[in-house]
C-alpha cells in the first residue's frame, strides 16, 4: 500500500471518463430534441382536432398569421376557434402537465418516497377546499371573465403547505417522517371539511365535484396568463436546487454532512413545488397521476439525476396531458366531454400498477 501509484494522477483515465460523460450528454440532448419536437408537433396536431372540422393547412395558416410570420387569416370565426379556443386550451394542458410533473419530481426527491406527489402532502386537497369554500359563500361566479375560484385554490394550497410544515417542525428542523404524517393528517381533515361543505350546501355540490374532477373545458389565454408566473417561479426554484435535490435524495444526515442546509433548502423546494401545484390546480382543478407516473417513467429511462429528471419530466408531462385532453375531448360521441382528470386516472392507474410490478422500476427504490 505504500505504493505511490495511488497518488499519481497521471495514471487516471480522465479521458475515458470524460468520453463517457460526453456520451451521456449527447443522449440527453437527443432526448431533449425528440421531446421538444414532439411537443411542437403535438401542439399543432392537437389544435387541429375538434368538433369543427378545420384542415391542417388552415390551422398552420392561423397560427403563423397570429405569430406574424405570414398574412393573417381573413375568416374571423376560424381564427377565434383555432387561436382563442383550441390553441389556448392545448397550451394550458401542456403547461399544467409540465407543472404537475415537475412538482412530482420535487416531492419525490424531497420525501424519498415513490408515492409522494402533490396529493400526498395535502396540497391539492387544500386547493380544493379553497374552491369549495368560495363556492359555498356564493362567490363562484365570473367577474370580468375570470372566476375568483383559482385564487381560492392558490390560497388553500399555500395555507395547507404552511400548516403541514409548521406541524412537522421539531425544534427548528423539518423532519421527513413527520412531514408525510402531517400531510396525511391535514389532508384527511381538509377532505372531511370538503365533505361537510358538500352536505351542508347541496346546491354547490355539482360545482365542487366538477372542480375535483379536473378539466380544461372553457379555459382560455387568461388562464394561461394566470398560470405562467407560478409555473415559472416554481420551475426556477426547483431548477436552481437540482443539485441539492440529488443530495437530499441520500437522506438528511448525508446531505448535511455534504454541506446542504437541509431545513432551508427543503423549505424553498416545498415552496417551489407548492407554487407549481397551486397554479395548476387553480386553473384546471385536481388532475391526478401526472405528478406520480411521469417522474417514475423518466427516472427508469434517464436515471436519478434531478437536473435532467426535472427537464425531461416537465416535457413528458406536457406531452402526456396534451394528449389526455385530446382524448377527453373526442372519446365520447355527440360532442360531450370527459373530465381530463378521469382520463389521466384511467390511463395512469394501470400504468402505475405495471411500473410497481416491473423489476426494473423496483430496482429504483
Amino acid at each position, binding site marked *: *500500500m*505504500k505504493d505511490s*501509484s*495511488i*497518488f499519481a*494522477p497521471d*495514471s*487516471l*483515465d*480522465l479521458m475515458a*471518463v*470524460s468520453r*463517457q*460523460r460526453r456520451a451521456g450528454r449527447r443522449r440527453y440532448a437527443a432526448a431533449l430534441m425528440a421531446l421538444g419536437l414532439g411537443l411542437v408537433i403535438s401542439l399543432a396536431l392537437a389544435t387541429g382536432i375538434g368538433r369543427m372540422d378545420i384542415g391542417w393547412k388552415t390551422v398552420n395558416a392561423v397560427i403563423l398569421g397570429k405569430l406574424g410570420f405570414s398574412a393573417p387569416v381573413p375568416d374571423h370565426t376560424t381564427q377565434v376557434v383555432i387561436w382563442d379556443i383550441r390553441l389556448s386550451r392545448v397550451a394550458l394542458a401542456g403547461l399544467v402537465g409540465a407543472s404537475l410533473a415537475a412538482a412530482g419530481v420535487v416531492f419525490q426527491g424531497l420525501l*424519498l418516497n415513490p408515492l409522494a406527489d402533490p396529493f400526498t402532502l395535502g396540497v391539492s386537497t387544500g386547493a380544493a377546499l379553497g374552491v369549495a369554500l368560495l363556492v359555498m359563500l356564493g362567490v363562484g361566479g365570473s367577474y370580468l371573465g375570470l372566476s375568483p375560484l383559482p385564487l381560492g385554490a392558490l390560497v388553500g394550497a399555500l395555507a395547507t403547505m404552511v400548516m403541514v410544515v409548521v406541524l412537522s417542525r421539531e425544534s427548528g428542523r423539518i423532519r421527513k417522517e413527520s412531514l408525510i404524517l402531517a400531510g396525511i393528517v391535514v389532508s384527511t381533515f381538509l377532505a372531511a371539511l370538503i365533505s361537510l361543505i358538500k352536505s351542508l350546501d347541496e346546491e354547490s355540490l355539482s360545482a365542487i365535484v366538477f372542480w375535483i374532477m379536473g378539466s380544461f373545458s372553457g379555459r382560455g389565454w387568461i388562464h394561461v396568463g394566470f398560470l405562467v408566473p407560478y409555473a415559472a417561479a416554481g420551475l426556477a426554484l426547483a431548477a*436552481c436546487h437540482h*443539485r441539492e435535490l*440529488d*443530495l437530499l*435524495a*441520500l*437522506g438528511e*444526515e*448525508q446531505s*448535511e*454532512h*455534504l*454541506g*446542504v*442546509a*437541509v431545513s432551508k433548502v427543503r423549505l424553498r423546494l416545498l415552496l417551489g413545488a407548492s407554487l407549481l401545484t397551486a397554479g395548476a390546480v387553480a386553473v384546471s382543478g385536481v388532475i391526478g397521476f401526472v405528478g406520480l407516473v411521469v417522474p417514475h417513467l423518466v427516472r427508469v429511462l434517464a*436515471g*436519478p*439525476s434531478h437536473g435532467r429528471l426535472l427537464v425531461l419530466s416537465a416535457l413528458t408531462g406536457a406531452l402526456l396531458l396534451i394528449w389526455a385532453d385530446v382524448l377527453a375531448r373526442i372519446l365520447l360521441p355527440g360532442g360531450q366531454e370527459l373530465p381530463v382528470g378521469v382520463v389521466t386516472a384511467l390511463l395512469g392507474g394501470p400504468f402505475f400498477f405495471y411500473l410497481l410490478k416491473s423489476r426494473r422500476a423496483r*430496482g*429504483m*427504490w
Partner: protein
Amino acid sequence: MVIQAAELCVGYGGRAVLSGLNFQVGPGEFVGLLGPNGSGKSTLVNTLSGLLPPRGGRLLMGGHALESLSSRRRAQLRAVVLQSSEVRFPFTCLEIVLMGRYPHRKRLESLADDDLLRALKSMRRTTTDHLQQRLITEVSGGERQRVIIARALAQDPRLLLLDEATSCLDVRKKLEIFELLKLLNQTQGLTVLCAMHDLNLAALYCSRLMFLKDGAILRDGPTEEVFTPAVLARVFDTPMEVSRHPAHQRPYAVLLPLPAEIQETEETLEVAHI
C-alpha cells in the same frame, strides 16, 4: 487548532450524554476515540460534525463557533463517514463520489475538470476505480462503504470524522483504508478523528487516544502513555494484557478471561431456578 472544546456538554433532548469536555485537536493529529457501548462516542462525533447542537459550553472548528458556520462552510472543513450510509436512489458510484465536491462548487456552475480529477483520485486511493459506472444500489456493503470514504476524501476536508467507518470491511480492506489515512495524515496534514471499537487497530494507527467513560473523558494522551492495562481495565471493566509487538513496536492488547463474577451470577440464577 482544528477543534477546540471548552466545558462542552453534548446529548439528545433533555439527556446529557457527555459533559464538561475540555480538549483540543491540532492540525495533523490522528486521534482515536475509544469507550464502551453507550459511552457517547457517536454522540460526540455527531456534535463535532455539526448535526447535533451542543447543549452547553463552547465548540470551535478552525477558530469559529461551529454553530455560526454555514452548512456549506462546515462541509469544506470536515467530512464525515459513519458506520453505514444507505443510498436508495440508483446513482452511479462516480456520481456519488462527485457529490463530495458539492461544498466547493458554485450554484449552476458546471463540473470542472479539477472536480472530476479529485473524484477519480479518491476512487483510485480507495481502490474503487472499477466501480465508477456501477450503481451504488447494486454494489456490496463493503464496496459501498469504500465509495462513501472516497466521497469524503473528494470533499478535500481538513478534518475527517469517522464513526466505526471500517467495521464492515474485511481485515485487508480495513488495513488498506487506515494505511491510506496514515499516509494522507503524514503527507498532507489531514486531521483524523475516529471513533472505534477495535483497540488494536486504534493502537496501531492513532498517535493519540481519548477514552470516554461515565459521561466524561477518562484519559486523553499519546497512545504510548495511555494504552495501558490499568486504563483499559478501567474503561472497559475487562482485564487486558498490553505488550509491544517486536516487529512494529506498537502496543497491542490481549483479552484475558473475565474473573469469576459472571460464573457466580449464573450459579445464583441456577439456584434461584431450582
